[in-house]
């Protein structure tokens, strides 16, 4: 029940934040802050120490017996990890928009909290119907965040974001229903429960198409090449908190979906599809990096870097061995933190300079050394400097991938170089060079430094002692590996990759 309560706390907190605006304009911020802190404390306080069955926590309430739909939530290591990340980044998001939002702060924070609630739901739901419900519901507050509090081109961005995710979501709905009816044909009972649908002996052709429905929805959200084009627009136009949430956690729902649903539900089809997925991952890594290099808009650059980094997640998931899977989970967490920080930085810059164009920045280090130092830290984090979380993630992914697809690994490793190129260019354009004498801007204040410091500490911790995270995720990922039919590995499919690619071209 505590999981349902967690979601409820966030929902009610959102309502309170909305209404509290009437009392005092500054109150919603505090309400939102308190809500997230309370839910975080609640989450950690109600954490069981041991697994019950496959799950750390599990609850099930009957909902729509007509379709075998239940209100079923469950938590394992990966979901716990992502929940904590979600709530922590929620705090960052609130901190980053503390002084930015003047228009209807109540509704703004309500939407923020509702997005968090939706994301928490996504990470907890193990009934496919319920999952889809949260999946869609989290979009609406996010859409409103972009559409109401966004920047100059927000309509286009918000619309694009919503249509991309919604259209792919429809495909997933279709796939979910098809899967449930396959389950009906096999088990004789209609059910949307994850546990009932695991391990079905699906008709290969149908399984393939159904898998594709899931895959599309998740890779649009991830986002993987070539479905990523909504991301730069959405990120650029979203308010800072929106970007932080979007990059930090919403993208992770895509990766989580692949990990939790797409691969375990369709091991055979995923296995066959792995080469294509990995090819998309490699393409995303490089394409994102090239386009990040080409941008002059600070936020756009970071957005494309996300595309590049999430390519590693895709690679890690479909390389499908312990190392790569751990790397993918690690990347989810580390990228969440580092990109959130970069977006917070971008938001702070925009708030101070009223531009995101790096051509109009330059020499900011002189005026704001603390910002410069933070930018430096997170830029090198995103280029994968050892000792920081992103490195652990990327090296694990690449190590795992190397065992199955050395050629892909070599190409993907080029991403390490290109990441350096765009990260350093960003630093150069914004913070180095000749400072503009006319310009004066305040450096980060204590509140912002607190948030930044926390994220730096998190990345260092992830980079130097990632074991707690790895241990949390391990049982889940080991479970995933047992799904591989014996004697059948991704490596065995590697030959198929060339054929598939050839046919694709």
């Amino acid at each position, binding site marked *: 029940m505590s999981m349902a309560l967690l979601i409820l706390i966030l929902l009610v907190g959102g309502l309170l934040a909305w209404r509290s605006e009437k009392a005092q304009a500054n109150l919603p911020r505090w309400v939102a802050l308190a809500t997230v802190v309370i839910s975080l404390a609640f989450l950690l306080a109600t954490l069981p120490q041991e697994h019950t069955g496959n799950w750390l926590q599990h609850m099930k309430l009957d*909902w*729509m*017996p*007509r*379709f075998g739909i239940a209100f079923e939530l469950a938590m394992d290591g990966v979901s716990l990890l992502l929940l904590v990340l979600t709530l922590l980044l929620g705090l960052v998001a609130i901190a980053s928009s503390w002084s930015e939002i003047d*228009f*209807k702060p109540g509704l703004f924070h309500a939407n923020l909290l509702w997005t968090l609630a939706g994301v928490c739901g996504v990470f907890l739901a193990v009934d496919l*119907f319920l999952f*889809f*419900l949260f999946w*869609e*519901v989290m979009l*609406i507050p996010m*859409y*409103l965040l972009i*559409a*109401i509090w966004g920047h100059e081109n927000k*309509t286009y961005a*918000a*619309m694009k974001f*919503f*249509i991309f995710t*919604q*259209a792919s979501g*429809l*495909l997933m*709905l*279709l796939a979910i*229903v*098809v899967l*449930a*009816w396959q389950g*009906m044909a096999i088990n004789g009972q209609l059910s949307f429960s994850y546990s009932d649908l695991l391990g079905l002996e699906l008709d290969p052709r149908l399984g393939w198409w159904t898998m594709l429905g899931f895959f599309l929805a998740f890779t649009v959200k991830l986002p993987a090449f070539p479905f990523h084009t909504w991301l730069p627009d959405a990120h650029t136009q979203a308010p800072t908190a929106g970007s932080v949430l979007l990059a930090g956690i919403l993208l992770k729902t895509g990766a989580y979906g692949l990990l939790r649903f797409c691969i375990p539900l369709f091991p055979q089809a995923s296995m066959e599809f792995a080469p294509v997925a990995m090819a998309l991952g490699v393409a995303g890594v490089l394409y994102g990096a090239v386009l990040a290099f080409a941008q002059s808009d600070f936020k756009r650059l970071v957005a494309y870097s996300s595309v590049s980094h999430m390519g590693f997640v895709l690679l890690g998931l479909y390389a499908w061995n312990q190392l790569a899977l751990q790397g993918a989970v690690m990347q989810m967490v580390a990228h969440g933190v580092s990109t959130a920080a970069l977006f917070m930085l971008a938001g702070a810059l925009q708030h101070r300079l009223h531009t995101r164009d790096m051509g109009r920045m330059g020499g900011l280090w002189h005026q704001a050394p603390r910002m410069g130092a933070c930018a430096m830290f997170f830029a090198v984090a995103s280029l994968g400097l050892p000792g920081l979380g992103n490195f652990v993630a990327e090296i694990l992914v690449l190590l795992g991938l190397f065992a199955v697809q050395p050629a892909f690994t070599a190409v993907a490793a080029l991403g390490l170089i290109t990441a350096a190129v765009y990260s350093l260019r960003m630093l150069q354009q914004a913070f180095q060079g000749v400072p503009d004498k006319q310009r004066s801007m305040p450096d980060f204040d204590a509140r912002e430094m607190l948030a930044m410091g926390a994220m730096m500490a998190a990345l260092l911790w992830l980079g130097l002692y990632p074991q707690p995270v790895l241990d949390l995720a391990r049982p889940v990922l080991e479970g995933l590996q047992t799904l591989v039919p014996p004697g059948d590995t991704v490596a065995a499919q590697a030959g198929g990759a060339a054929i598939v690619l050839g046919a694709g071209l």
Partner: protein
Amino acid sequence: MNVNHFHALLPLLVLATGIVVLMLQIAWKRNIGLSAALAALTLALAALSCRFAVEVAPLQVTPLLQADRFALLFCTLFCLAGAATALLSRDYIVMRGDQPGEFFLLLLLATMGACVLAYAVHLASLLLGLELLSVSLYTLIAYPNKTVLPLEAAAKYLVLSGAASATALFGFALLYAATGTLEFATLGQKLGVTDTPQSMLLPAAAMIFTGLAFKLSLVPFHLWTADVYDGAPAPVTGFLASVAKGAVFVVLLRLFLDADLFRYRILVEVTGLLAILSMLGGNLLALLQTNIKRMLAYSSIAHLGYLMIIFMVCITSADKALAVEAAIYYLIAYTATTVAAFGLLTLISADQAERENIQLQQVSGLFWRQPLPACLMLVALLSLAGIPLTAGFIAKFYLVNAAVSGHNWVLLAALVVGSSIAIYYYLRVIYYMTRRPEEHPVVQETISGWRGRILSGVLIGSILLLGVAPQSLMHYLRAILH
């Protein structure tokens, strides 16, 4: 005819009584408030009476009417939608014309026509119900508003709808000529037994179908829809889009079920074809509309297209009951949503004597000025778009389940494509409503008092309830079909 028969027809009797009372009231003293209250009360009572009529169901009352739970469910639905329309239109009507109390009389008549259609198991009752509904609607469209547009809309609707009725009637005549019966059930038996001439049956089917498809505004019989919706007064449009279409769909479904027309594969395939055309055409037509009423009109074409899927499902799926369940659920959700959407337009147009606030520009920033009505629209649009937590989502989920169980992949593909297109135009309205005050010209509207607010609350509540806790309704639907 014994007491039970009257018992079974309770809703119709209540409506008829109400009509008489209302007529007397208008003759006695014109008072629009009183008329509206009487109409709403009658409709509410009629809806309530269905609850009692169920006790004797199923019961065939004369060859014409079948009082079963299916019919009574839709009676309840139509009466509730009618009641909502009555409440919504009160202030709207007050502002227009000189105390046209007859508006509510006509509304009652039209609702009664819809209820008769829900009961109908005979071509005669079908004819009577359909014409009662249609003729009342012609008048409703043109009556309260003395401007040009409603007139044009009424004229178009009258001519085209009349032609459609005539076509359907001709088809029935041919059917009658071929089989010698007017009852749905015996029709089914006769079709099965007698060696009926195909040359007569097939054109008959085509003509009946044309007539009804017109009323459902399926592509390619849809051209009238936007014009009539646009010209008609907003509350009437809501009624037209929800109750009128719902009633025709119900009778079509009953005809197919009772006469077992599903055995004619070509007929069902035609429904599938029209479904696909409507899903795509309706959504494409709605895409760039800046007039919300027209947009909703086109979207209603698409929604009926979604609904038409279930005929194909009935012949392909092992679970025919699921398809019918899905159709009923969809109709209920769609009715609630449509009433809500047009309800908002009615509310914000109430004090505009000459025109209506139906352009996108006119709802700009509504969210900040009128939060509750804007929420009503928001919920309605999300429901139309099929976003979870709303009735529309469960309805679509039902449909998808049904279609998947029948492996109707082409129809599903059209549904997905259509729904994807639809997101854009629904979202656009939401976007306009949430525009910041500094981003749009000053728009003013006043929302009428407590009635609108209460009704908004009720509608929001019911749409969300249908979306979040649909299990009891699902259970009920399952019960009446088994």
